[in-house]
């Protein structure tokens, strides 16, 4: 077990889930703003990109070097959602769709969190050796 990569993909997944929750929260808050376009991200492809970018991030040439995460969250590409129905004021938010996506996103956040929690517990059990 490599302690530097103890949490695997879940560390980045948590970050990205929070970012996505923010985007969805902005959509819901702006449900009554004229002309606002609902946005979302392609979670899987962004996460994949994040993971592969991390591998090609600063290479550690000495065992004392710390690993780095080479991916800036500001680089995430947001796409506009296709509205289910048109509205006169140009707003494309469907509150029920956004709520559902936010709920799903939150559950998946909790799932990643649970896995990290389990890993911490696993590791501390191993450390104690009781």
């Amino acid at each position, binding site marked *: 077990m490599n302690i530097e990569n103890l949490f695997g993909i879940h560390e980045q997944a948590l970050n990205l889930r929070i*970012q996505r929750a*923010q985007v969805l929260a902005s959509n819901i808050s*702006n449900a009554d703003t*004229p002309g606002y376009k609902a946005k979302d991200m392609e979670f899987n492809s962004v996460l994949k990109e994040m993971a592969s970018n991390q591998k090609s991030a600063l290479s550690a040439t000495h065992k004392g070097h710390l690993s780095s995460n080479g991916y800036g969250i500001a680089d995430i590409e947001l796409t506009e959602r296709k509205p289910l129905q048109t509205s006169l004021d140009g707003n494309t938010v469907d509150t029920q769709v956004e709520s559902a996506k936010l709920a799903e996103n939150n559950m998946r956040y*909790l799932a990643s969190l649970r896995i990290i929690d389990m890993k911490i517990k696993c590791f501390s059990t191993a450390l104690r050796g009781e």
Partner: protein
Amino acid sequence: MSTFNIFDVAGMGMGVQSLRLNTIASNLANAESVASSPEEAYRSRHPVFSTVQMNAMNDAMDDAAAVGIEVTDILESDKDVQAKYDPNNPKADANGYVYLSNVNVADQMADMISASRSYQTNAEMMRAAKELMQHTINLGK
């Protein structure tokens, strides 16, 4: 930590919706107001919403995704006010007319339901974000 941005976004959402409820309340309260001239008559008010970039507020690199909401303007309806012949009214003009407000009560009621639903959704969103934070804080316990 950026989860707090959800609290900001939801808080701004609740703020603007309660302002919207406030304008609806004053519109409904003044629906029956009368005035002595069309210029003085109460005109129904409506807030104008627009988005606001959160990263401009706290200058953090990773917050480009969050967009808040604010009220930029409150517009008065320019719909014609109705004149009513009521010579006994102390506010009646020389011809015996008083001028009613141009508030449409049915419109305002529908708007009120929309505003309170939006407020609820924002409050619910904040509760969900709070739950996520609590779980995160309890990590490893």
